[in-house]
């Protein structure tokens, strides 16, 4: 039930395969798919950062440097499974198949959740910390009650593990033996607060044993290891093996968001150290070394990522016309009398503003 002392790894920083207790190296086609989605994810991330600078997004929390964790976890899910992401997991949501413009609706400011959660089985991105964890537990328990084998994977950050809802969710999941994978990306910082000020536990994965949940510590910059660990947890949970807590050790290369200044709380040297452990370069080295990826394939992939970014840029550079009537439309299943009046007042106000003076 206790995690290993050091993170489970399948690929070292130079992309060499290393033997890892209990983790199976994913098949070649999976490794190639992981690489492809990580390239697309990184380009999506840099495009979103650029859109922030252009004023097209109100804010963007980057996950640069965490691509192995984000993509590895999502590709390990089956169509029947559910993803419960946070605000930092936009690239994971895109990887799951949600239209990137719909994903960015929240950060663009048009509406809160731009996509239909049922289409790709992706819950709305959660901004309060850890509140999505009990949702995942409830959804997964309901699936079991209905006789379905769906698993819910909830994404959490290191900071979120200090919240009460993480505790409640882990405990409920364990007592109910609910098919849930708690996937904690430990990226070192909760905005500015480093992990040392967040917990005194030997690792976040160690917290599992207190609930009777197996804890797994995995190298979060190793896409192969993340995929293998999550896949194993999903398979086990779907078969009735109960919840699993996975800590993926990674690093937030960018600041918390574009509005944050990371130089106030961490050294450039620390960032540089992690840049040298880039998850994308690691997988690329491995694939190239094994002849699974050549230069033309990389060029083709870069072109695909560029085209995707250009399409996103173009679609995000149009001005949207949010409908003010939507404000009062969705609060209840059926509009209340009071909201009907308020919607009418707003309509009058807007009509009056349109009239020539």
């Amino acid at each position: 039930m206790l995690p290993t002392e050091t993170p489970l790894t399948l690929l070292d920083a130079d992309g060499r395969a290393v033997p890892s207790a209990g983790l199976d190296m994913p098949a070649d086609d999976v490794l190639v798919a992981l690489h492809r989605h990580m390239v697309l994810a990184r380009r999506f991330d840099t495009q979103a950062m650029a859109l922030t600078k252009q004023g097209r997004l109100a804010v963007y929390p980057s996950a640069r440097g965490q691509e192995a964790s984000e993509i590895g976890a999502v590709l390990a899910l089956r169509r029947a499974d559910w993803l419960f992401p946070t605000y930092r997991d936009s690239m994971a949501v895109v990887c799951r198949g949600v239209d990137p413009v719909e994903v960015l609706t929240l950060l663009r400011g048009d509406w809160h959740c731009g996509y239909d959660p049922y289409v790709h089985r992706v819950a709305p991105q959660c901004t309060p910390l850890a509140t999505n964890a009990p949702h995942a537990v409830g959804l997964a328990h309901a699936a079991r009650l209905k006789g379905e084998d769906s698993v819910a994977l909830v994404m959490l950050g290191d900071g979120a593990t200090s919240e009460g809802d993480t505790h409640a969710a882990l405990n409920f999941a364990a007592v109910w033996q609910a098919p849930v994978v708690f996937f904690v990306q430990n990226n070192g910082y909760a905005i500015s607060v480093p992990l040392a000020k967040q917990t005194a536990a030997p690792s976040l994965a160690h917290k599992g044993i207190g609930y009777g949940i197996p804890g797994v510590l995995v190298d979060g910059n190793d896409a192969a290891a993340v995929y293998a660990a999550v896949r194993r947890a999903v398979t086990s949970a779907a078969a009735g093996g109960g919840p699993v807590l996975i800590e993926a050790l990674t690093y937030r290369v960018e600041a918390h968001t574009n509005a944050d200044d990371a130089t106030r709380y961490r050294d450039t040297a620390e960032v540089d150290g992690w840049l040298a452990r880039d998850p994308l370069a690691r997988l690329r080295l491995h694939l190239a070394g094994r002849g699974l990826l050549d230069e033309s394939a990389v060029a083709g992939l870069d072109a695909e990522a560029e085209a995707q970014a250009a399409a996103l840029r173009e679609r995000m550079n149009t001005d949207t016309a949010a409908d003010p009537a939507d404000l009062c439309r969705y609060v209840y299943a059926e509009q209340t009398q009071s909201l009907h009046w308020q919607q009418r007042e707003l309509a009058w106000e807007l009509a009056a503003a349109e009239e020539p003076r």
Partner: protein
Amino acid sequence: MTAVAETGARSQVTPATVTMAAALNRALADALREDDSVLVFGEDVGTLGGVFRVTDGLAAEFGEARVFDTPLSEAGIAGTAIGMAMNGLRPVIEMQFDAFAYPAFEQITSHLAKMHNRTRGRVALPVVIRIPYGGGIGGVEHHCDSSEAYYAHTAGLRVVTPATPGDAYALLRQAIECPDPVIFLEPKRRYWSKEAAVLEPGGPGLDRAVVRRAGRDVTLIAYGGTLATALEAADAAAEDGRSVEVVDLRSLSPFDDETVTASVRRTGRAVVVHEASRFCGYGAEVAARLSEQCFHYLEAPVLRVTGFDIPYPPPHLEEFHLPGVDRILDAIDSLQWQETAAKAGA
């Protein structure tokens, strides 16, 4: 639940005497029987049948997969209910006491209330949160809060409170069928009140107030635990020759403007009664709406008879805090009757 045992068959047509607790129990049982997606869970609701016995016998009848005890965490209960509702179930959860629901506040206000809106109606959360609330039972600290204003202030929640056994049954059935999340506040001092009632899911809608007693001179607006006090005050006022109309709000959110304003326009006077503190209390909203919508019909300011602006007092002092008949009669007496008479005479 002797009343349940006495009444026996499900579709009862002749009124039978039933307590509010038994009526609630019956509503849960009937909902569980008629809809496989209904679940009941919370602290001590399974084997024990709830600390107020509202869920008595349900786990035995419907099994532990549908009626069950959870670990002790209100945020966990509310949060998992949200996930279950996302996956097609209709959870009816219990917060054991009003003040013990506060750990679930973030789940209720940030998620339960907002999900339908933030997903443009794509995700509905038909969750009912049953909360025994209010005082008058000699409960110690943290067991007697009237927390309705917190919930009523939150857009996206419906807030309902029955005052009679018949309404307890009907409103709970309607709340369980409602696609919106419903905060279902049960006035715990009325749990053992009895009424000869026909328990049926129909009647006035989930968002309607009802006139409990017709009158001409003044409208008393009450709900939950204070309705019985208001009716008692109306009886006493009648002895003094004042004809008092009593409106039972039932739904605190949405507010039934139509029924309440129609009554106040008839009587020209209004007093709102509730246990909760006055400042930013529910009565403030009622008074504001009445002055906005009935100003020209009013003969006097809308008055509030409420608890004091204090934390709920200890058992030996609660009688001084709770609005009683005398306090209501005093409020009615101060509604500028002389001024109206003088105007009429002039």
